[in-house]
């Protein structure tokens, strides 16, 4: 990073979440000078994805709750009388109730480290924060380490875990999250290697079984060692194939920086069983679970939903009733009603008929664009998407500064407009617009704001929740409330080919609107679908249980949902300061795109929002080196076009791969820094 930043920008953006990144790209694209800052050393804020060790550092970071930057006061002298300052938040308080569970055994090696890992944020690790204790007293960061819960009947009934002493709940607040401690706790509660080997010999009569269990034996150290194979999203979302984010990615040509994988199946949880939902024509045709008549009724209803507006008479009488009631009138069997309500429309029992129809339509419109389900998932995790927009911003001259922040913004008393910001080094940077992510605002600004919460769980499991011939499935499962008043839980299960988890494991994301802590909200669903990892083979009576995937490692946390807040709720906000919200609990990214576009349109009402980036060969450079540049671009772009078409024909998916060459070239020629962007692509 440069020693000091330029002192003048058009737009200063604080936070690199999705809406901020889109705004940054949109502003940079139309020639605005953009400074894009994030206090963290990674992109995305709460939209980020982490390797396993990265996630551990992130957890550690929240445990310690350090100040985001060291305060310096020298800048105060620079202010003149016509100016006043508004301080920003020094702590990020968007994550709460973190709970980590490790079910796999630790090897004796203590210092397991991720292969090739870089310590994510050495600054924070060494940071000695004296206010930590005080802070945690005010708002105890509920961090616990659990061994297997003895109150859990499912688990305690297992023969391997009957000893109450070893399975005792070790609910110790403020326990250091260091691996060492955890290893002590977990090894005591998991059976020793000897017993498991003994069991293996017992099973050796059935060779296949033995082989399988040997294959499945996963240890904590193997997860840590291959931690770089993980890309764990903090928010779990998918892209609707015809949603606004895909449209934006395509329209703006940002899609060239990302690769996607189609979600391969939609699942549903009904009568205690996970089933695949036939939702496309091919699915319905091939489905073995539906009768002929069911097939027809389902197809008929779905076809109607596709353009339900044209057939208003079909639902006129049910306009004011709920969707679930309306479905009952459509000659659909209860099982089909369940499919449509929970897996296709994904609305609650109380959603109105119109909302249900609209949601079904949205689902169906996205279906078949890129595959047999309506959803895409970005390879390497959702955290890629904000980075793609940042890259686009950098290509057009935006400047990036990570691990940097803004202490306050300066307001001109007369005009009541923000005229500058003071960065974490005390430098005054003037700007015409200041865009800030909600979590950076001080409590002073947000005292009237009422936040909701999102409950999240991340599980690493050993097999899929619905096994099929292929072990590379990307699935989405919506679990309706088990009891009244409980939230609907959305589950996304990712396989290793999405580049988010290591081979032979699955990464499971659970998300719901919070009603209590994340663990309280999500654990009932987790218990229905999974069992904790047990190394030894289970007795025959538990063989049914074996069909359930086993949890190797689990994380619960709550994330603040700052969406849907009216601008007027924020105190003392100058008219040229705009607030971006963090992620919402919904499956799609519609909210973020909508917010970004709306803020951009307020900033530059006459400008187009993210017009297509020109082809590199159409860009005119300084006269003297036009020739050489042109030649270079032409040759490389030809190769690229060939590659792209080959790829498309080979793997009939979409998506042109992010092209490092092109990004690098244009950035160099654009002449601006953008080094942060160039650096961030360090994986592999």
């Amino acid at each position, binding site marked *: 990073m440069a020693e000091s930043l330029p002192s003048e920008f058009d737009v200063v953006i604080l936070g690199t979440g999705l809406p901020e990144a889109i705004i940054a790209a949109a502003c940079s694209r139309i020639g605005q000078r953009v400074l894009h800052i994030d206090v963290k050393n990674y992109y995305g804020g709460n939209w980020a994805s982490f390797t396993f060790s990265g996630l551990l550092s992130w957890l550690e970071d929240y445990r310690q709750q350090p100040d985001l930057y060291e305060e310096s006061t020298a800048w105060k002298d620079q202010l003149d009388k016509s100016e006043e300052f508004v301080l920003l938040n020094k702590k990020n308080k968007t994550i709460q109730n973190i709970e980590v569970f490790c079910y796999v055994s630790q090897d004796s090696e203590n210092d397991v480290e991720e292969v090739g890992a870089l310590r994510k944020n050495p600054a924070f690790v060494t940071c000695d924060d004296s206010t930590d204790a005080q802070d945690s007293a005010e708002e105890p960061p509920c961090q616990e380490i659990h061994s297997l819960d003895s109150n859990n009947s499912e688990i305690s009934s297992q023969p391997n875990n009957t000893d109450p002493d070893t399975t005792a709940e070790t609910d110790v607040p403020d326990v250091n999250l260091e691996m060492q401690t955890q290893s002590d706790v977990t090894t005591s509660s998991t059976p020793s290697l000897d017993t498991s080997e003994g069991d293996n010999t017992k099973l050796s009569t059935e060779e296949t079984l033995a082989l399988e269990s040997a294959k499945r034996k996963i240890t904590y150290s193997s997860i840590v060692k291959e931690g770089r194979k993980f890309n764990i999203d903090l928010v779990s979302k998918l892209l609707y194939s015809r949603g606004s984010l895909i449209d934006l990615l395509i329209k703006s040509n940002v899609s060239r920086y990302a690769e996607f994988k189609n979600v391969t199946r939609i699942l549903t949880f009904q009568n205690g069983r996970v089933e695949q939902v036939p939702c496309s*024509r*091919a699915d319905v*045709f091939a489905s073995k679970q539906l009768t002929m008549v069911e097939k*027809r009724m389902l*197809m*008929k209803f779905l076809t109607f939903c596709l353009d339900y507006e044209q057939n208003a008479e079909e639902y006129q009488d049910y306009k004011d009733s709920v969707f679930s009631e309306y479905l009952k009138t459509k000659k659909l069997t209860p099982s089909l009603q369940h499919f449509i309500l929970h897996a296709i429309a994904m609305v609650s029992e109380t959603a109105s008929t119109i909302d249900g129809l609209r949601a079904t339509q949205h689902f169906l419109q996205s279906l078949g664009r890129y595959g047999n389900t309506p959803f895409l998932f970005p390879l390497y995790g959702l955290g890629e998407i904000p980075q793609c927009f940042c890259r686009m911003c950098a290509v*057009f001259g935006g400047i990036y500064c990570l691990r940097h922040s803004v202490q306050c913004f300066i307001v001109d008393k007369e005009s009541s407009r923000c005229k500058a910001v003071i960065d974490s080094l005390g430098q005054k940077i003037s700007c015409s617009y200041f865009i800030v992510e909600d979590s950076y605002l001080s409590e002073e600004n947000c005292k009237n704001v009422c936040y909701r919460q999102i409950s999240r769980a991340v599980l690493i499991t050993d097999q899929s929740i619905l096994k099929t011939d292929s072990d590379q499935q990307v699935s989405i499962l919506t679990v309706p409330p088990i009891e009244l008043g409980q939230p609907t839980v959305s589950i996304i299960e990712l396989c290793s080919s999405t580049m988010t988890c290591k081979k032979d494991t699955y990464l499971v994301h659970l998300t719901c609107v919070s009603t209590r802590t994340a663990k309280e909200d999500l654990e009932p669903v987790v218990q229905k679908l999974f069992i904790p990892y047990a190394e030894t083979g289970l007795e025959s009576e538990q063989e049914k249980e074996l069909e359930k995937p086993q949890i190797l490692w689990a994380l619960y946390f709550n994330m603040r949902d700052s969406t849907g807040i009216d601008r007027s709720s924020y105190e003392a906000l100058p008219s040229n300061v705009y607030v971006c919200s963090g992620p919402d609990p919904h499956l799609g990214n519609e909210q973020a795109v909508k917010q970004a576009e709306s803020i951009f349109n307020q900033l530059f009402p006459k400008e187009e929002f993210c017009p297509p980036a020109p082809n590199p060969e*159409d860009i005119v450079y300084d006269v003297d080196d036009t020739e050489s540049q042109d030649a270079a671009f032409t040759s490389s772009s030809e190769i690229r076009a060939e590659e792209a078409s080959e790829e498309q024909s080979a793997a009939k998916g979409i998506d042109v791969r992010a092209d490092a060459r092109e990004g690098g070239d244009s950035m160099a020629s654009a002449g601006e820094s953008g080094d942060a962007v160039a650096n961030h692509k360090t994986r592999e």
Partner: protein
Amino acid sequence: MHGRIKVKTTEQQEEAKRKEREKKLQLYTAATNTIFQKRELQELDQEVLELTNQILGANPDFATLWNFRREIFLHFEKEKSEDEMQKLYKRELSHLESCLRVNPKSYGSWHHRCWVLDRMPEPDWSRELELCNRFLEMDERNFHCWDYRRFVVLRSEVPPEEELSFTHGLITKNFSNYSSWHYRSKLLPRIHPDPQRQGRVTEEVLLKELELAQNAFFTDPSDQSAWLYHRWLLGRVDREVSILCIFVSRGGEWLSVGFSHPVTVCPGSDDLLLFLNGAPLMVSWRSVEKKNKSSFLWLCDLPVGLLSDLCPEHTFRVLWKDGAAQKECALYRGYQESWNRDSATEEQIFRCELSVEKSTVLQSELESCKELQELEPDNKWCLLTIILLMRALDPLGYEKETLDYFQTLKAVDPMRSAYFNDLRSKFLMENCILKMEYADSRVIDLSHKGLTTLYHEEQLLLITHMNLSTNQLRALPRALVMLRCLEVLEADDNIIESLEGLSHLPKLEEVSLRNNCIHRISDLQPLASCPRLSILNLQGNPVCDSPNVQSELVLLLPRVLHIIT
């Protein structure tokens, strides 16, 4: 605004593109010229191979160049070792692949690929099959690729079972795929042949396939590919040619042979032989179609005086194609005519659209189609299939229901109402023929049936009286000339304009054509060739309004005693 990236204007872009195109064109023409010169001079070398490579890479449909390349390869084969040729051909295949990517439906490229593989010392067939898979994944209906696949499968003897599962995979992905369904219809009889009926499959497999097709049309009833496959499944073997009827007339001194299919009897050939009391009889065969077209009916004149009444019995035997079909008929003393024919009722000839030995299968198919029809009352494929199934099961029993379904069918698909009317006419005629045969009669009443056209004239060879009144017939078609026993024809209240079929009918005596649309005297010309016609009723035809109608008719038809206008 500052900092904005400058982008070429559209004019600049256009200009740059135009220049590029010009450059390309120059290169292309130059290379093409060189190639043709070299061909003229028979310079079959590596360089020209390279040049044609470039041109074909850009335009794979340049057939002449593919020919030239084959010439070069054939020339090389004389000079080079097998190893070298193998390498050359291998390179040719990868070049072809890139050409196919330019145009996956290039006739020249696919053909050349077949040629290369047949010339190659060691062809790698599995790679070719893989190539087919990839191209079919891009376009599952690329018939060029399907053809090529069949070529590969044939040469490399891929087991049909594997191919069957391949089609299954494609159908699972997207069942709107005629090519795959069709391929199944070719593979299944090879894998699971029905021992009794050639070209069909065993019942067990049939049931599975029916279920597959049902899955498809219950999922999307408007997709016709599955319906057509369904019809194939329920269809039956093509019947072999047989002789339906042999008829001999003592007075007329002629003999006719009616076939199940139109056949051609070449003059002077041994295709159709006639024996009288075991001894061959030399006759010359002619069809009623005049020209040597294929025809259902073949006639011969018997030698004059052959059928004298002195002989107690004349036994005729006809032999078709060395005994592929034959029939006998005896004419006894005292009889003017004699015949021997197959019965339409016994042979179930009219169930030919659909037929499975076990009617239980048809019955259950009918039930599920009816179930679907309840859900989709307006689906024409479903309605049509129901009709066909009912025909196959019990044509007379379901007659009323069938007619109702036709009514619905015409309403939901008015664009094809004429086709449905014709189909309906066909079924109604079949039913009438069946009824007539049950009654053992030579009189057929087809009045008030709403017929739009006539069918199955080959089944009406012995008819003496026919009533076609009150239908929607526009013509008395050419095929009616087969009705050589017809004496009385009533065709009142139609919209008949043409009488083409009423010619050379040896026994026709009385024709009633009241209230039709005969406009010109000349339209009645065919009647002049019917020797016995004596009564003709033309009341209510436009022709009657023309002046001098009577006198002109007398001129045209001098033998007809009573012409009522």
